[in-house]
């Protein structure tokens, strides 16, 4: 009934929603409020305290944030997180788009290729990490392949070397993410009206010009989505690093997320850990807001 006359009611300013429907909305909302909103508020508050998890939290204001300036591990973690954003994010967007362009046409065998690239997306990052750990072993496939091509001098303990650990962790993360980004771009490419390309061909546009002036502008919406997904995924990244290096050796592959976890749950510095979590939130904030603004526009 409410739907029938919704428009008229809104004009009159009176709304009557059946109590069942109210419960439909309130129960899930309360579940989320209890497990997400309330903890989030506490998280922000705890970032202003010094807390070992046992005695009462001691309010220290911005003390934790102040401490970050002098914390060299924090600097490393922040830098690595930015590197992770640029490398993991940038490469998965570029290579995902490349894979989508390569595999966009429906032709024989393309389903197999797509499935091959997509398969790792369903693995947990933990399993992915262990698969790659086997590849990175001193006598593993990567070093053996280098030997095979006469590049034995490049043999490496990839995960144990401070100079290579972070990059060695990014590769498995990319291996898994590229297929996901590819799926998003494939859907975007499918949504482009073929008439645009035909018109361009009639006008004598080259393949590059078509890509430059049709494909790229038409993908703007998907790009925004991919960007949000990538930034949020980058800042959340935890499993693959935790399973491969736990942020080591000597914090060389430390991300803010792993540093936050070990600070909170291993060093039991819950206040400082909360402050690190707030930094992660701040870095994600712009993306969250732009995602919500876009969702707001499309909510009706």
């Amino acid at each position, binding site marked *: 009934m*409410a*739907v029938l006359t*919704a428009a008229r009611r*809104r004009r009159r300013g009176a*709304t009557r929603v*059946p109590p069942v*429907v109210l419960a*439909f*909305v309130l*129960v*899930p909302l309360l*579940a989320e409020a209890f*497990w*997400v*909103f309330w*903890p989030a508020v*506490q*998280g922000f508050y705890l970032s202003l305290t010094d807390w070992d998890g046992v005695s009462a939290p001691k309010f220290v204001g911005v003390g934790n944030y102040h401490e970050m300036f002098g914390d060299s591990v924090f600097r490393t973690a922040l830098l690595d997180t930015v590197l992770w954003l640029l490398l993991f994010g940038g490469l998965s967007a570029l290579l995902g788009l490349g*894979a989508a362009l390569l*595999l966009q046409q429906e032709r024989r065998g*393309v389903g*197999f*290729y797509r499935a*091959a*690239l*997509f*398969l*790792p997306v*369903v*693995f*947990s990052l*933990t*399993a992915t990490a*262990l*698969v790659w750990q*086997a590849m990175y*072993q001193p*006598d*593993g*496939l990567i070093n*053996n392949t280098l030997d095979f091509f006469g590049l034995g001098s490049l043999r490496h303990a990839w995960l144990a070397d401070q100079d290579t650990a972070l990059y060695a962790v990014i590769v498995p993360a990319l*291996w898994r993410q590229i297929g996901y980004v590819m799926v*998003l771009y494939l859907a975007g490419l499918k949504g482009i009206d073929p008439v645009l390309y035909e018109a361009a061909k009639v006008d004598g546009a080259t393949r590059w010009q078509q890509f430059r002036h049709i494909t790229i502008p038409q993908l703007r*919406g998907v790009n925004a989505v991919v960007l949000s997904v990538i930034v*949020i995924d980058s800042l*959340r990244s935890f499993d693959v690093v935790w*399973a491969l290096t736990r942020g080591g050796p000597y914090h060389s592959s430390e991300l803010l*997320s792993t540093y936050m*976890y070990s600070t*909170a*749950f291993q060093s039991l510095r*819950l206040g400082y850990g*909360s402050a*690190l*979590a707030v930094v*992660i939130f701040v870095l994600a904030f712009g993306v*969250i807001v732009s995602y*919500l603004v876009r969702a707001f526009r*499309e909510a*009706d």
Partner: protein
Amino acid sequence: MTAMNRQARRRAWATAGFHAGAGALSLLWLVPIALVLVTSTRSFDDIAANGLGSLPHSFTLGGFHQAWVDGGQGRALLNSLIVSIPTVLLSLALASMAAFGLARYDLPFRRTLLLVMLGGNLLPPQILLIPVSKISEALGLYDSLYALIGVQVGFGVGFYVFVLHGFMRSIPPEIQQAAVIDGAGPWQIYRRIIMPLTTPALAALGALSFTWIFNDLLWAITVLRTDTKMPITASLIGLQGQFVSMWNVIAAGSVIAAAPTVVVFLRFQRHFVAGLNLGAVK
């Protein structure tokens, strides 16, 4: 004639080039998977003697047995399923109800509510970890699978509401009006009309959320402590510590941990991909 020939030849070359490129790329993607499958069926002595990167000289399922029994992967797999299946069902049931209310009724602040719920899902989980572990302690749920189910439902529901809301908005109001005229209440409309029409979106979200929840590590190690309660992802990390350099066991554990989501993917491939796009294109 020759022009046509030349064109046909060029097309044949282009096709060959495509398959060579795409084939090489697929190979690059499949090699790690093949490698782990092979490693999981080798014996420890074989790997110790010939090296991890060598061709296999043995075939045994002993690694699976060790991972399953000694490494506790069997128990862990069960834990993962005990968490994942109710969580998926519960969060989709709750989310579909909220989405129904928000999409089909003129609730006050409905758009704000929708975005607040979505916003909760977009928060980085790190900000919630410490309070969630403390809340589950205060409730006496710490180190129990109920805490994991609770937080997974609470954290996931916002996103599912948003996706299902978009889907339900697109169902023509006339269908519902006919039911209202026949005297159907909100529950009947939800159960008999909207839910059946929303099945494709539910299937897509179901396949997707199953893999997310099954693959989660962070929430699990935040609210659980006892080894025998850990889901398969956390148990896999334990396996790595317990069976150091016994790569056949670790590989077998990875295969066990990946198998259920691969099965879901192969069975629901279409829904799965649709799910990713449902969430993203919005």
